[in-house]
């Protein structure tokens, strides 16, 4: 049975139902957060690491959550920040410049045994990879997840206008990449 966010939070604040509530929260949001992270990191193993880190962080900080925003907004924000941090750390370890994304991440697709896409899908993914990290996240959230700009604004802490502009530019860049090859 899926509880509402409000019910989950109430149960989490009760010591007797704390673990049960957290278990339900993980089950409720694991898929959505997994795919959000996976589109950023591309690789399943990396996604698994980050997803665990996200929920550990949620466990430690949920008691501080003040309900000024929606719970899923807060969760998405943590997942986005953890993904970007992980990506930057991985690039540093690999000695890759932080703004040089595409080749580095393209290798993530090819090395991932959990990628089942055909050539045409790989072409789209590589085109998406030419975008800077944050713009790529905006594109994924809009194109694949069909999120509203208002929701994205709360998650990414960016204005709706800036997000619209970013998405518009992202679409144009990808179109050029797809037309080129």
């Amino acid at each position, binding site marked *: 049975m899926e509880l509402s966010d409000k019910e989950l939070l109430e149960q989490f604040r009760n010591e007797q139902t704390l673990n049960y509530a957290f278990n339900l929260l993980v089950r409720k949001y694991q898929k959505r957060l997994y795919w959000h992270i996976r589109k950023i990191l591309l690789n399943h193993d990396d996604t698994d690491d980050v997803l665990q880190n996200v929920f*550990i962080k949620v*466990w430690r900080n949920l008691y501080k959550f003040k309900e000024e925003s929606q719970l899923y907004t807060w969760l998405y924000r943590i997942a986005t920040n953890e993904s970007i941090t992980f990506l930057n750390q991985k690039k540093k370890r690999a000695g890759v410049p932080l703004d040089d994304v595409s080749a580095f991440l393209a290798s993530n697709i090819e090395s991932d045994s959990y990628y*089942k896409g*055909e050539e045409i*899908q790989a072409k789209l993914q590589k085109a998406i990879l030419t975008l800077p990290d944050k713009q790529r996240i905006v594109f994924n959230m809009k194109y694949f997840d*069909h999120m509203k700009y208002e929701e994205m604004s709360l998650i990414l802490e960016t204005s709706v206008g800036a997000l619209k502009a970013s998405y*518009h530019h992202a*679409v144009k860049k990808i*179109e050029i990449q*797809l037309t080129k090859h």
Partner: protein
Amino acid sequence: MNKSINISDQDDDLTELAPQLSKLRTNSLFHQTEKSHIASDDYFDSLTIKIQNRIDDFEDINAEAPVLSTFSAYNAFKVPADYFDEFPTRIQQRIIDNKSSSTFLEWILLLIKPRFAVPVLTVVFFAAAGINFMTKNAELPKAEYADEISVEEQLSTIDESTLIESLTAESTEDETKSPAEEQSIENYLLDNNIDESSLTKM
């Protein structure tokens, strides 16, 4: 032969023709009762909005990026079997593991914080100083005791009459005042207009 179908009679027909089937209808998964699962009130409202958003998004893409619009938003990534079934259990285990290691680490980190480190180090310092002091004092009485024994031993060898003479000679010496002391006493008596004879009477 044409039969007119009276819809309102159909329920009665079912009850007569198939009473068991008629009973099952009320227990249908899709029959809305208080106990069965029902869609939330705003589901259909939000569904309309969602569909409209998807249409708007598609039309935007189609206008700006016709090649991209031919790609379906197909999820080309896959997940290991049972991953989502097992994930909650793995997380719970990790939380339990983190709890036991973090308690010890938190205790160590707490001790090295300045607001705790200073008083702790102060207590340790004074404790060490106190132990050191007590250790030294424990040694002294033995030495003094040893000296006392040797003094006593020495005294026991001296004749009593010699001791008395020595003690009385010392007391006589003590009674004799130095010239400087006498002068200061005289000056005091003169300054305060005190008659010496009045002192002897007291």
